[in-house]
């Protein structure tokens, strides 16, 4: 057994090294390639542009450190669009306690570029447990459900929250997520009150979003890092998404090549065995 295991270890290291190599090379020497936004990305962008300016946008940050590579650039792109177009937003988490903190870091570092201030231009509601019952309560009474913001200010004293009572003052909810949170927003916000819903998800969940898009339950989809890159292009800003597209391309090509190579070798082995027998 040790012989077989030893032999099978060699291609493993070669493949790992290849992946490191191509990603490093393409990160340092990227080939600029303009991204064109696909229809699901464009429709999310346009839905935000069409929002009335006096309404608040909820960024539901349902991701944690594990999916930062995908959801982080998406959050950054969306936050920049909201800053740029002068719309107030609230960061809110109900799936992972780390989410609102990570998004706060992103919003903080981008706020300087746009001259935005915490409290007037955005607010962070922090994390709430309780799942769906809490989401339902949130729709009916925001100040009583949130109580305090992340800096422990009473929520009604935060300027950005002036006049915000319940779902009527919410222009849109954008679910940025690494887990199955979409159903809850559709079932208990969009489906009940008709509050428009945007969606930014990890690649694993991307294809499962399209039945919702087709039924008009969500306005648009950002799928993984590619979605972030397309959104950056749409808003007209630079960002991590576009910087990393060359590496993404290279990695996809590598995977496809490995699958083909593996299967070619299998067919060759099979032929050789058949030849030995014959």
């Amino acid at each position, binding site marked *: *057994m040790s012989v077989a*295991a030893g032999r*099978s270890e060699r291609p493993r290291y070669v493949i790992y090294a290849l992946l490191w190599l191509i990603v490093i090379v393409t990160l340092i020497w990227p080939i600029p390639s303009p991204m064109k936004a696909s229809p699901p990305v464009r429709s999310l962008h346009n839905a935000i542009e069409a929002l009335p300016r006096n309404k608040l946008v909820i960024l539901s940050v349902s991701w944690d450190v594990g999916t930062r590579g995908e959801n982080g650039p998406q959050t950054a792109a969306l936050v920049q669009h909201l800053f740029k177009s002068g719309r107030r937003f609230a960061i809110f988490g109900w799936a992972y306690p780390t989410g609102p903190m990570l998004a706060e870091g992103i919003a903080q570092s981008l706020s300087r570029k746009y001259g935005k201030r915490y409290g007037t231009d955005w607010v962070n509601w922090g994390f709430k447990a309780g799942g769906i019952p809490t989401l339902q309560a949130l729709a009916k009474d925001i100040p009583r459900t949130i109580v305090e913001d992340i800096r422990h200010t009473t929520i009604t004293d935060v300027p950005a929250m002036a006049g915000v009572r319940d779902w009527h003052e919410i222009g849109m909810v954008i679910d940025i997520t690494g887990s199955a949170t979409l159903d809850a927003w559709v079932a208990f916000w969009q*489906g*009940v*009150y*008709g509050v428009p819903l945007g969606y930014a998800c990890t690649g*694993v*969940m991307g294809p*499962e979003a399209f039945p919702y898009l087709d039924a008009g339950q969500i306005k648009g989809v950002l799928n993984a890092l590619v979605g972030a890159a397309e959104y950056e292009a749409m808003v007209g800003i630079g960002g991590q998404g576009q910087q990393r597209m060359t590496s993404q391309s290279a990695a996809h090509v590598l995977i496809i090549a490995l699958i083909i190579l593996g299967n070619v070798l299998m067919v060759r082995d099979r032929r050789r065995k058949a030849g030995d027998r014959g």
Partner: protein
Amino acid sequence: MEHANEFQAALFLLIGIVIVGAILMARRGRAFHVRRIPGLSAIDEAVGRATEMGRPILFTMGLSVLDIVSMQALAILSHIARLAARFGTRLIVPVADVPLYTLTEEICREAFTAEGKADAFNPQDIMFLSDQQFAYGAAVVGIMHRERVATCFYFGYFYAESLLLAESGAIAGAVQVAGTPATTQIPFFIVAADYVIIGDEYYAGSAYLSREPTLLGSLFGQDIGKGIVLALIVAGSVIAVLHQLFPHLVRSNILAKWLGAG
């Protein structure tokens, strides 16, 4: 739509009554049929292969915790454990959740006892490894190589560890049978395993093997429920065609309106 309209409430009531009715009928002794599921017949074959080769069988539920999905996996495990006991083949079950682990051991012990092989049961072969995804994955991979397993079964709810496990099993040359309701992990099982039980088939499979009346009745009721949904889709599509072809006769899609759209 803060509250359901009459048509929606009626649809919910209809499907609900059908399902509950079928469960109650099954419990009163009405026998329901479950169709042949190709992946399931492969289970016996895969156990037989391990017996022939004189090598162990590995059964994993991934990161499943104690819930309805894992309880149905245990029904399948019970079937496999009885086969293994009958043929005297070793069965290894690594688990990633403490409450699930105690129940797993109980189920295996019962299966061995039912076959009259209580003394052949080795509690050491049912083990709690870790509840951390990659620590668990790496430990199971280690077992696959060390014990030279001939057959791997994957039943339960899987996350990203499915890839790691199915790859190692394929390299070890094991026959692999997988079944999971986690849609996102099915592609990896399809390319790396020999038999895959897809989506809802998983629930049907455990009902088939456990013969539990509640599950069998529920399955029948669900079939009727799905039939109702399918009938709605066909009827709605026909009305949509009529609306397109004769817009002045069929003014709008009435069925879509009843369902609350538009």
